[in-house]
């Protein structure tokens, strides 16, 4: 049944690209989410405004539209910028070429950063105020408060939302094949066109996603247990 007709390594390489892309986008959006949530909760009005505009605009526009918008515009902006640099310093010819992988990571990270911002904002608000006050009373610096008190407790509240976001990112990477990255969907399409058996190869691609979903469910369950240590559940 699993006769992949010699396209096994090709599809496997695509699957690896999918996983790499999702993990890197997760890191970018995780960082952006933390920054965005701090901006949304800060006392600075400008930071709050920028963060609110970011989350509202990004979450109101379909990700495929944003992906095409950013993917095609980013290169033009970078070209304009390097042209401008070259006019300043004409002795060196400065040039940056974005490959689909990098722009895929930047785009997905930027889009899902908005969703992470909202998740983290809710989670930060859920941490009891007394915890922060106690930490400050111990003389901890703001960063230490964040690292030792806020972050570990916040993660417990954020995990269900993070898990959802991760599953959405994993599935959104399929869109990147539209902008020409050879992920698992792209590989399956190529194999299907070459062997005239698209149905079979697309089912294989779907199965790859199902396996990845199951693995991430397991990891999430483990993380949830880890961050639940020391929390007593109400017995109903």
């Amino acid at each position: 049944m699993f006769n992949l007709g010699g396209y096994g390594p090709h599809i496997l390489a695509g699957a690896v690209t999918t996983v790499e892309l999702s993990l890197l986008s997760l890191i970018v959006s995780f960082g952006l989410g933390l920054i965005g949530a701090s901006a949304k909760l800060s006392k600075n009005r400008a930071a709050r405004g920028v963060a609110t505009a970011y989350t509202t605009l990004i979450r109101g526009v379909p990700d495929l539209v944003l992906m095409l918008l950013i993917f095609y515009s980013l290169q033009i902006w970078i070209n304009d910028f390097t042209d401008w640099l070259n006019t300043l310093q004409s002795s060196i010819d400065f040039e940056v070429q974005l490959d689909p992988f990098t722009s895929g990571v930047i785009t997905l990270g930027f889009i899902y950063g908005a969703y992470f911002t909202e998740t983290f904002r809710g989670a930060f608000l859920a941490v009891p105020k007394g915890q922060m006050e106690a930490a400050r009373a111990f003389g901890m610096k703001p960063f230490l408060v964040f690292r030792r008190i806020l972050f570990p407790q916040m993660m417990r509240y954020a995990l269900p939302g993070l898990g959802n976001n991760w599953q959405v990112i994993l599935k959104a990477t399929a869109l990147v094949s539209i902008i020409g990255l050879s992920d698992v969907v792209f590989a399956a399409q190529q194999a299907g066109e070459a062997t005239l058996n698209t149905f079979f190869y697309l089912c294989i691609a779907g199965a790859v996603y199902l396996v990845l979903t199951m693995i991430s469910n397991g990891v999430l369950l483990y993380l949830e247990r880890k961050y639940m240590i020391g929390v007593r559940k109400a017995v109903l």
Partner: protein
Amino acid sequence: MIYILQNYWQALLYSDGYQMTGLAMTLWLLVISCAIGFCLALPLAIARNSKNPLIWGPVWLYGFIFRGTPLYVQLLLIYTGVYGLHFVHNTPPLADFFRSAINCTLLSFALNTGAYTTEIFYGAIRDTSFGEVEAGRAYGMSRFTLYRRIIIPSALRRALPMYSNEVILMLHATTLAFTATVPDILKVTNDAYVATYAPFDAFGLAALMYLCVSFSLIFMFKKAEQHFLAHLKS
């Protein structure tokens, strides 16, 4: 920007002269797929709550497969994969159905949103408070009446906030139709981009239009929540 607006405003809004395109097409895709998904989800959600594993098992599997794989893969599978199968190719009614891009798109969207909606309704039905069902039984209602009068109205109301999220996500998902050559907003703006090579103007316009539709939907659902969930307001 002005050039795109002058040349494409009609195609962006309702028609390019031959067929329905742009905003009208996007809304049509959204409404039809959500309607079919809703009709599919309601009985499936009731079946998912059954105690018999032979009944809830298949529904769970349907949800697992359609929520575990990307919509893009499902669309490709139905649009390019199914038509390539021999028995579909050789059965005229099936071949006619799967040859049309819009049919395949609607089918995959409806199946996808149906899976998510089933899960939403399943949770809402499961969380119906015990007292409501007990009171219904005390009135001597049959199972069917109990579902029709008590469980489903109450569950649908409680599912409304989650369901509005799903509809917004479905609006975002309709952009995938452009990969199957269905002329929705994104397809028209993509044509404009190809003609002008001004990606920011073309796709920015699409982003603005989707933003407007998103905000109108959010506003409508807020009004609906105020109406249907008025009893829950403190």
